[in-house]
């Protein structure tokens, strides 16, 4: 096997564009724009960064499908879609960054976001354990910094530290798990691992490795019971960082997770039905999903902080996404991708609204939203779309995400299987979830504004991002086949 | 004549009058009264026109109008007139204008009163002419609404409660009536009284209902029975009646007792009896006791009353129970081997005469009570008066005639009906006739008490002061009624001629299916 560096370079052109973009942002900021106001510097950084994202997007679009560099990377439908999704969500995050409170080093902030995005792009395409780990770490380290970026706010520092500690532990688990898998199968290539597992069957070493990997991913995607960092990070991190953590990073994370579980460990899935018991990750993932669904939805009921509420809802959605992972075996990655992307859109949008509101005043508690319909009808309308989509109300995209995932899960093993039972549980919990989503909307759309709350002016870029996200949610809802038809 | 939908006109002209009144909100009181009276009189005029071409010898329906209406329920707009209907339409036509006259001066908001009254009159006429359950029931139920408001808005202090009781009792009965007909339709697919009667006569109806099994065939009968029994009212379903009659304004009391209570009797004769000859025969034994209860206890209850209006109300229970007594007696005898058609014919024609006569005499009595009440400033206790005869001799005379007509004095109208009933019942169920005699005595007792306490003796109570005799208006109401009492007392065949062939045909077909 001769290393095909040209092919590798060609496949990595999107990531390279992003890194170059990041460097350009930093360079321009240090040289030409040094004396400008922070606002102007941010503007420039975002323009350059957006350009880099668009370039990367163009290159992803043009990329040739197939495996690269001997199977280290795979460019298939899922990778393409998920990379485009990551880029799009990052672009939207840029838009809301424009609307969020100004911070001291705008260029660095944008540059790190670009780096995070390049890590996420790699994750979406990785097909080898080492590269996967590297990509994950690149993305994670960038996200730790982003979470703690607001040095003026202690909450932000706490968020950064907490995220870092939990993330570091997850990385340790992941690395340990990967090494055990390597030990058991003698390979880091996912295709080779799959062959080995199929040949030798179950093996204690492999099981331990698999459990480690599951734990690590549980941390990454904030699935209960490994969710403890999520509320604090969502609460403390700057809004755009939180948006990125909740959207693009989740999309890429689930892409990688799926790739790891199904093509590689597919043979170790275990049976999909209750009756035929056998060890396998299927049940472990099902258990994670169940705990996340219940805990996320129930804990969200008690929240008074808007961001913590979104965090718990994220946990609940992680449970549903895990259900989507289970269904990949029978229905392909379509439902999962659709869910993850549309969830990302809604979450970016929700954090975008929070970002804009924080610029104008306070937006911590749910009650701070009171009178939003007066203060800014645009924000209120967009928030309604995002929240209703999260709640899964048709004809918004969130509903079809749930619909396709649950239906795929039921298809996977019938009503008596763990997946089927979980689907019913998830449907039941979605009625519970409606309560806390409506509590948010009640403040935004029904309650009157507090005395003296001024109207909110929404920056143009933020407007564009929010309206785009809302329009996409509506569009994907009206026309789910636009995404589902990809697979 | 057939080109003109005479029966529809009879029903809808009063309603047209009501609509007209509703559309003229600025009409003054005198004009409203005149307009209402005019439309009310239309019934009498149209009925007399119908009488001209009515052929008593035909036992079927005449002036029939039948049009498709609701295909999904096989409902037809079906009207028809026979001797029975004619009698009741005539009664309504006679009484309604008098009721309006009775309320001529005393009623505020004359326009609204006239409007409601015309609605009520039209609904009552509809009940007597409709031959399909669907719109028969429309008229039957819709008559309650104007009646309720007439009682509620113009009634005495207890009118709210009385009106509520009246409507709830009656609707309660009607609800079961409705259920019964729902069941009948489910079994036969028809709601037409004529078709159902022929099914009932052959026993096909009973057979179809019997397929339900269990207690349900009887339940259907019971439902229909309850609807009518409350309306008449048959003892012990009469408890709504005294309060309602007593609280209603005079003109409305007259209509309630004169016409609306006849709707129940009409229902028994037109619907229950032909449709359920078998079940009625089976139940008639116990039912006779109910009717006797009405006759006897009604009379005794009337004896205990000190409120004149309540007393007359109870006497209505007593008088109407005679009608049912006769009908049940006929039903008991149905199918028995004894040749009883002559007695049955007597009982049935007595019943119809009683229906008409009671309408006239009870209306007259209520009017007299109203006169007393208005002269006494709202008091109407038996002991609030004394010696009225010397204060108002003309009034005393006319009221006395009405009392004796009600009591059944020969020569006045009440006698003929009661006599025929007793004769018929004696031939069919002698013991019942014997028990009913108790009622006769009690009736005589309380009516004479009324006569004596109020009109005789020294002037006392309300009559102690100035007590005006009858005005022209009072004459206009009382004189036609009293004249009819004499006329029908002397020449009962004026009425019996209208329905005798019908009665004979009924009496000759007293067989159980």
């Amino acid at each position, binding site marked *: 096997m001769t290393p095909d560096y040209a092919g590798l370079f060609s496949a990595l052109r999107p990531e390279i564009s992003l890194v170059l973009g990041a460097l350009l942002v930093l360079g321009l900021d240090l040289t030409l724009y040094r004396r400008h106001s922070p606002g102007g510097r941010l503007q420039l950084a975002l323009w350059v960064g957006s350009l880099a994202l668009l370039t990367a997007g163009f290159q992803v679009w043009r990329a040739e499908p197939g495996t690269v560099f001997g199977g280290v990377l795979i460019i298939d439908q899922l990778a393409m879609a998920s990379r485009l999704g990551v880029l799009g969500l990052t672009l939207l995050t840029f838009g809301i960054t424009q609307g969020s409170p100004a911070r001291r080093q705008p260029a660095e902030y944008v540059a790190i976001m670009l780096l995070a995005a390049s890590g996420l792009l790699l994750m979406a395409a990785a097909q080898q354990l080492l590269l996967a780990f590297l990509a994950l770490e690149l993305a994670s380290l960038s996200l730790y910094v982003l979470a703690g970026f607001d040095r003026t706010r202690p909450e932000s520092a706490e968020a950064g530290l907490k995220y870092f500690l939990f993330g570091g532990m997850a990385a340790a688990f992941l690395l340990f798990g990967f090494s055990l898998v390597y030990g058991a199968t003698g390979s880091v290539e996912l295709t080779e691992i799959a062959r080995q597992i199929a040949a030798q069957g179950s093996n204690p070493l492999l099981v331990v490795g698999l459990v480690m990997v599951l734990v690590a991913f549980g941390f990454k995607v904030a699935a209960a019971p490994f969710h403890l960092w999520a509320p604090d990070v969502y609460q403390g991190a700057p809004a755009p960082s939180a948006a990125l953590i909740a959207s693009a990073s989740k999309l890429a994370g689930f892409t990688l997770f799926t790739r790891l579980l199904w093509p590689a460990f597919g043979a170790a899935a275990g049976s999909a039905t209750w009756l035929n018991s056998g060890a396998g990750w299927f049940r472990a993932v099902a258990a994670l999903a169940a705990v996340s669904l219940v805990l996320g939805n129930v804990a969200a009921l008690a929240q008074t902080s808007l961001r913590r509420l979104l965090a718990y809802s994220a946990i609940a959605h992680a449970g549903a996404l895990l259900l989507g992972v289970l269904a990949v075996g029978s229905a392909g990655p379509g439902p999962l991708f659709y869910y993850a992307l549309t969830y990302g859109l809604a979450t970016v949008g929700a954090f975008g609204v929070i970002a804009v509101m924080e610029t104008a005043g306070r937006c911590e508690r749910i009650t701070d939203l009171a009178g939003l319909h007066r203060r800014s009808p645009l924000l209120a309308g967009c928030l309604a779309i995002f929240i209703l989509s999260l709640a899964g109300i048709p004809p918004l995209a969130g509903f079809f995400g749930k619909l396709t995932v649950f239906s795929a899960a039921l298809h996977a093993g019938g009503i008596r299987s763990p997946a089927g039972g979980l689907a019913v549980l998830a449907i039941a919990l979605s009625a519970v979830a409606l309560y806390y989503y409506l509590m948010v909307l009640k403040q935004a*759309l029904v309650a009157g504004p507090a005395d003296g709350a001024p109207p909110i002016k929404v920056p143009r870029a933020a407007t564009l991002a929010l309206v785009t996200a809302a329009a996409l949610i509506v569009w994907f809802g009206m026309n789910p086949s636009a995404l589902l038809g990809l697979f | 004549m057939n080109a003109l939908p005479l029966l529809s006109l009879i029903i809808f002209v009063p309603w047209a009058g009501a609509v007209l009144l509703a559309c003229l909100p600025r009409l003054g009181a005198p004009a409203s009264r005149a307009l209402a009276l005019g439309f009310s009189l239309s019934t009498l005029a149209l009925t007399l026109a119908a009488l001209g071409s009515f052929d008593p010898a035909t036992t079927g329906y005449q002036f029939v109008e039948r049009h498709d209406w609701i295909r999904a329920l096989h409902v037809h707009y079906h009207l028809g007139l026979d001797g029975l209907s004619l009698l009741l339409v005539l009664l309504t036509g006679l009484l309604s204008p008098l009721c309006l006259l009775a309320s001529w001066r005393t009623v505020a908001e004359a326009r609204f009163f006239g409007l409601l009254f015309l609605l009520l009159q039209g609904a009552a006429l509809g009940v007597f002419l409709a031959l399909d359950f669907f719109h028969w029931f429309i008229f039957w*139920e819709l008559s309650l609404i104007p009646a309720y408001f007439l009682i509620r808005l113009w009634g005495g202090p207890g009118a709210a409660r009385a009106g509520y009781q009246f409507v709830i009792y009656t609707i309660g009965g009607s609800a079961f009536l409705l259920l019964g007909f729902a069941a009948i339709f489910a079994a036969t697919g028809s709601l037409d009284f004529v078709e159902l009667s022929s099914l009932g006569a052959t026993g096909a109806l009973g057979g179809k209902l019997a397929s339900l099994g269990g207690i349900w065939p009887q339940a259907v009968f019971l439902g229909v029975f309850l609807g009518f029994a409350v309306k008449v009212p048959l003892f012990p379903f009469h408890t709504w009646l005294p309060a309602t009659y007593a609280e209603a304004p005079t003109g409305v009391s007259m209509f309630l007792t004169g016409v609306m209570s006849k709707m129940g009797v009409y229902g028994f004769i037109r619907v229950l009896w032909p449709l359920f000859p078998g079940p009625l025969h089976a139940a008639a034994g116990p039912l006779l006791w109910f009717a006797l209860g009405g006759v006897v206890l009604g009379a005794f209850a009337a004896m205990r009353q000190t409120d004149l209006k309540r007393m007359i109300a109870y006497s209505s229970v007593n008088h109407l129970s005679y009608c049912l007594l006769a009908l049940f007696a006929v039903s008991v005898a149905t199918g028995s081997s004894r040749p009883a058609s002559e007695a049955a014919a007597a009982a049935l024609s007595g019943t119809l005469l009683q229906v008409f006569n009671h309408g006239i005499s009870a209306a007259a009595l209520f009017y007299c009570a109203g006169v007393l009440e208005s002269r006494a400033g709202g008091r109407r206790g038996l002991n609030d008066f004394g010696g009225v005869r010397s204060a108002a001799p003309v009034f005393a005379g006319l009221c006395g005639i009405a009392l004796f007509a009600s009591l059944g004095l020969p020569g006045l109208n009440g006698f003929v009906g009661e006599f025929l009933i007793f004769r018929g019942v004696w031939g069919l169920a002698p013991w019942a006739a014997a028990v009913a005699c108790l009622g006769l005595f009690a009736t005589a007792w309380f009516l004479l008490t009324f006569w004596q306490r109020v009109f005789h003796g020294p002037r006392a109570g309300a009559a102690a002061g100035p007590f005006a005799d009858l005005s022209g208006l009072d004459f206009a109401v009382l004189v036609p009624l009293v004249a009819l009492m004499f006329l029908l007392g002397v020449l009962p065949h004026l009425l019996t001629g209208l329905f005798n062939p019908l009665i004979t045909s009924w009496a000759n077909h007293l067989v159980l299916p």
Partner: protein
Amino acid sequence: MNLLPWSIYLTMAGALLALAGGRRSAGTARWIALLTAAGTWILTLLAATRFVPGPGLQTLVDVPWIPAMGVRYHLAVDGISLTLLVLTGLASTAGVLFSWNIEERTGEFFALFLTLVAGVYGVFLSADALLFFVFYEIAIVPKYFLIAAWGSTNREYGAMKLALYSFAGSAMVLAGLLWVYACGGAHGFSFGQLTHAAATLSRPGQIVVFALVFFGFATLAGLFPLHTWAPTGHVAAPTGASMLLAGVVMKLGAYGCLRVALPLSPVAFAYWQTPIAWLAVTGIVYAGLVALMEQDLKFVIGYSSVSHMGFVMLGLAAANPRAVSGAVLQMFSHGVIAGLLFAVVGRMVYDRTHTRQLGDLRRMKLYRLVPFATTMFVIAGVASMGLPGFSGFPAELTILIGTWTAAPLWAAVATVGVLIAAAFTLRAIQLGFFGSTGPSSASATDGPGLHAGSAPHLSPITWPEKAGALLLVGATVVVGLKPDLLLDWINPALQSPLLQAVLKGGAP
């Protein structure tokens, strides 16, 4: 016939226009809403004149929507849906007229109002269960905001309770539908495909699935004991919204039961028939008794709605063409009558007197102050009692006839409900509008004292109120006297093979 899908699109467009118009002035939004609602209603009537009744759904639009799941954008109409479409047009037009006095956030109010209406049109036109569900949810969400933002008594509680019940119900429906779809191996969500798929499930499976779907829909239809959202929701809602709520939204549930749930599994229906019927008659009687005790006039009407919807559910449970045709007729009838009752109480009375307590109202003797409102309430009340001449009578009669055929006992108990309905309606009329005459009042022949006493001044009834009320009264009388107008549409529709599998007894 292809006019009908435009009822959805036009109403949706009207919602957006009203939102935009509301930023200019309240009046603009009102007129846009009125034109939209009335125009759409006329559209449904036009379509109705060209409608040829027949068994089965007549397709209007049918294109693939989500090919991956076999979902189609399939709009179709039959006599049942046409009846309800006409009702929706009528109720929404009247609803707009009775919302004329909304001054705050007018544009948003009518936007939500019309969105709800568009969803309702969509539900009645859907021939694909998933599309049905999508429109169903579109209709539910605006309710919450309409009540929470513009409502009265205890509005946030009422709105949330209503929303949660509705969503719990729809979650059950979704679970059931997906279950059938996924586990039965269906290739799409058309009603026929689902029935087919359901037949492949085991009997217990069918029973559970049927229960999920039926009771999910029945929640919105106010079936006892799932009805508790209805009175509080109705009471809290602004007048226009409670008219829609009682008028058409509760019908969504009943329509779902009829269109989606009943044909799903004849086996399971046979299992559930008796419990459903008993719940329905219990609801009729229980809600009636509660209405008899209530002191708040709007609660009385709210419970009366539950009682009347009990008749609809009873008709469905009796499951013969006669009873079901009566149930559909009752849906129409109740939509009109309940709408009128809520309009009188909510708009004509409450907005003027600011109280709905019978204890307060009886002292006011409203018949002297607002004779028009009184007349309308009496007419609506009389119609609601099921008195003949109004639409409630042929409906209840037909249901009773059909139920009698199925099981006489149900019909007998339901008849008690009719009696209770008469009692509570009369009580409401009496206490609410006529007060009670004390012993000191005029003597028997003194007349009613129509002008006695000094009255507080109440603003006169406005033209939109009169127009709306007369519209509804006209509808109930026309249908009451000529139910064939609707039955001629409904009865052929019941001959469709899907329904015939469940409905016993052939042609009505």
